[in-house]
């Protein structure tokens, strides 16, 4: 299977700061990849470029074999890090609104996810707590049968007790069969059981990458401990 996301010498500059500085990466299907790194390491920028929300300054990037654009957006699901929901809508209206734009929207999956996340469809988005809004964003991203799912800090705002349950659900029930799921996070301890592959980013470049199991075996420590060591 070809790469679902590939980047070669990818660069992105904001003002005089390089958010991505010659990043090389390849993501293949059927895998869950953890994109790890401290703030400012380039995780969000990479995901936004893949989602078609940010234009690269240099290098090459291909999503499903094409440059990010209208065609790739049809098959890429993206969960933004920021609070970005439509406050004037109810949960049901939000789902209906987004479903209009995607042919791969799965209504059954959306209903199931709402139940799992304990969200009532008639609740107004404006009245949701931060944690509930984070769950709703997860529903919106996972309710599609997308080839590439990009989750930018999906656990941010969710209470620690629910994080593991949600991660297990993502791994067990919403694992992509042919597509790939990329999770950017610095909440490594709760998410590490989900990762097949891991990429550590630092100042816009890949610092360390590999199969999660191999990295644990090679370094004799958990990914959480490895994270602390890499960025010490």
């Amino acid at each position: 299977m070809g790469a679902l996301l590939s980047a070669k010498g990818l660069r992105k500059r904001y003002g005089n700061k390089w958010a991505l500085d010659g990043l090389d990466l390849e993501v293949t299907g059927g895998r869950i990849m953890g994109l790890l790194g401290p703030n400012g390491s380039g995780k969000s920028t990479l995901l936004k470029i893949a989602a078609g929300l940010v234009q690269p300054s240099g290098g090459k990037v291909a999503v499903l074999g094409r440059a990010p654009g209208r065609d790739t957006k049809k098959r890429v699901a993206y969960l933004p890090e920021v609070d970005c929901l439509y406050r004037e809508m109810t949960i049901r209206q939000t789902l209906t609104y987004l479903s209009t734009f995607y042919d791969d929207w799965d209504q059954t999956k959306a209903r199931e996810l709402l139940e799992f996340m304990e969200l009532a469809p008639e609740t107004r988005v404006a009245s949701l707590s931060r944690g509930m809004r984070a769950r709703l964003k997860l529903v919106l991203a996972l309710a599609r049968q997308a080839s590439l799912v990009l989750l930018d800090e999906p656990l941010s705002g969710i209470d620690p007790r629910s994080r593991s349950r949600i991660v297990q659900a993502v791994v067990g029930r919403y694992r992509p069969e042919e597509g790939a799921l990329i999770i950017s996070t610095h909440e490594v301890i709760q998410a590490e059981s989900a990762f097949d592959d891991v990429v550590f980013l630092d100042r816009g470049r890949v610092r360390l990458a590999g199969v999660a199991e191999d990295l644990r075996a090679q370094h004799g420590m958990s990914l959480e401990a490895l994270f602390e060591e890499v960025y010490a």
Partner: protein
Amino acid sequence: MKTTVQRLWTLLRRELAASRSLLLIIAGLMVIWNLLLATRIGMWPTYLAESMAMWPMFIVLPWAAIASVQSWHREWGQGSIHYTLAFPVPGWALVATKATAAVIETAFLGLTAAIVGWPLYGRMVHGPADALGQSVQLRAMGITAFKAGVMLAVVLFVLSIIVQLGYLAARAARLPAGLISPLTVVAASWALIRCGGLLNKGLAWLPSVTFWAVGRAGKAYQLQARPAGIAPVVSAAIVGLGYLAVTAWLAERHLDV
């Protein structure tokens, strides 16, 4: 599978829903303004309160521009721009639905101002209009209002696109909007006038439309035909389509969220 029309309709409905509260507040203020003026009749000089009832209509032109900027600004403010720009819809659909919403909102406010102010400012035209007879004046006013409304809608649509171009150009350039937006709007308006002027000459063969106005012939009132060429509006629409293409290209290819 959803069609393009369904997606455009969904975008448009969302735009209108997002502005609904603000529009209702402004409409309410118009009602309050007119009630206040009604209490001043007889106390203020003749026709002062009546003519002031028309003031809310002056919101019409600026509102198309305000609504266009407000729409994009709201997207960035509440973060929904992350979803909007991730939709697999062409840039022109985003820009055109925002322009259409701006025109509809402006029409709503214009009609509201006209209707709630009519009992007051209508007193100034009752005399001449009554002299023509109800059926004649209603027909003439209806036809003229429809034609003027269509032509104004085209102009407002183009105005909205120019304002959106200014806003998105500043976003794409990552420079202060206070500097780039006005410069872009001024440059685009200047180019519209220049290119529109050239097109206008080429389109002079287009037919005119007739507006009806109440005029005086001696002491008697009568409906008078006032022909107006549609070439300037068609020229503006053609240049506006060019701006739509540029704005759509900016929205789809040059924005960083």
